[in-house]
């Protein structure tokens, strides 16, 4: 046994153990807290596998924001009871057998493809084209240049999900006034988070960071504000909020279409401009992602919805 593998084996074992504990804990609160720990451990694994961009995103989104959403769901009492389904013994046995067989099959394939005969994947190509992409962080190059279309559609997914949150949910009760200690912390923390988000956004072009990490950090600022009793969580209302939500997808799409109309292909940046265009898109995307994530935490509006603003309301009353 090679001793250098020990840390990796330890990390992998801890991941599996934590996942087991998350999935089999009968106390939901405990499960959620363990899940947050699982996310943090995963962030360490990403760092170990030389994926600092992911480590940042996992800590902010996977552990942080998911954790906040799940905890607030517990507070709403939407846990319900935690019994396992009343499946018959045979059924459970069959499920376990299925799981075992599939794990072995997937593991076998992974062994064949990773260990037995390594395949040359896209690493070399992606790194070779980096010069022409306008940024020097390869992950940002993939996200906003090579596979920018994926990212565009992903922003649309976020938009659809947040519209869904707003359609079904009413706004949650806010929190009461915090004590002086927390209040003081908020006054330090929120500006710091905003500055950090700006830094992550800017640095994403050449180092780990980018729109998603920055958006999540900004959203964290909003959530902290709400915890401190600011019910709006720093978001505007009505029309402005709609523009904020649309900004990311809109700027992305319009720039892409602009390139098509001016003779290039869709999302084919002129090479000299690609760096600045990517930055513009990322700024808009950061704003939209942050707004969407804060809205997801806050829930819908108690008075109908954001698609109807004051002017519409007055009109409908008068007509």
């Amino acid at each position, binding site marked *: 046994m090679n001793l250098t593998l020990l840390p990796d084996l330890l990390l992998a074992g801890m991941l599996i153990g934590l996942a087991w504990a998350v999935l089999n804990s009968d106390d939901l609160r405990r499960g959620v807290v363990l899940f947050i720990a699982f996310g943090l451990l995963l962030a360490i694994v990403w760092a170990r596998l030389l994926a600092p961009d992911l480590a940042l995103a996992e800590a902010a989104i996977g552990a942080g924001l998911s954790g906040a959403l799940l905890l607030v769901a517990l507070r709403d009492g939407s846990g319900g009871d935690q019994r396992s389904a009343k499946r018959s013994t045979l059924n459970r046995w069959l499920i376990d057998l299925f799981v075992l067989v599939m794990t072995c099959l997937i593991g076998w394939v992974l062994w064949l493809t990773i260990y037995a005969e390594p395949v040359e994947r896209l690493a070399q190509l992606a790194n070779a084209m980096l010069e022409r992409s306008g940024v020097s962080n390869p992950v940002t190059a993939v996200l906003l240049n090579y596979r920018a279309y994926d990212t565009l559609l992903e922003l649309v997914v976020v938009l659809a999900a947040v519209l869904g949150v707003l359609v079904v949910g009413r706004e949650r009760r806010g929190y009461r006034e915090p*004590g002086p200690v927390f209040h003081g*912390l908020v006054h*330090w923390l929120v500006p*710091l988070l905003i500055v950090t988000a700006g830094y992550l956004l800017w640095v994403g072009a050449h180092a780990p960071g980018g729109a998603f990490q920055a958006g999540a950090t900004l959203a964290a600022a909003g959530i902290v504000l709400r915890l401190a009793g600011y019910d709006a969580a720093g978001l505007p209302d009505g029309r402005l909020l709609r523009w904020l939500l649309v900004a990311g997808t809109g700027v992305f799409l319009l720039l892409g279409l602009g390139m098509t109309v001016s003779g290039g292909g869709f999302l084919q940046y002129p090479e000299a401009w690609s760096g600045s265009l990517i930055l513009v898109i990322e700024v808009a995307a950061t704003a939209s992602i942050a707004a969407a994530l804060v809205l997801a935490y806050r829930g819908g509006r108690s008075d109908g919805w954001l698609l109807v603003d004051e002017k519409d309301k007055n009109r409908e009353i008068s007509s």
Partner: protein
Amino acid sequence: MLDLLALLLIFSGISFFFLGAIGLLRLPDLHARLHALTKADNLGLGLLIVGVALLHGSLLMAMKLLLIWLLALLASAASAHLISQYALRRNRS
């Protein structure tokens, strides 16, 4: 020599973490546990950070690490306060 010092600092930092974890598991009530956790972890993190800064040897990195330590201090102080306040309120009612 410097490296040796750094390693020493890192290891003593880690042992503080370890003690804190033991305290968390073994101490009888919430306040004592919080005490063990925050004290040990803040000190442990501080030692760890000084050690890492020495190993790295650049001033900029040392500043960044210091910032991290300060933030962690702020967060742990505030959250320990909130938790104990909550516990007190619940005990009273």
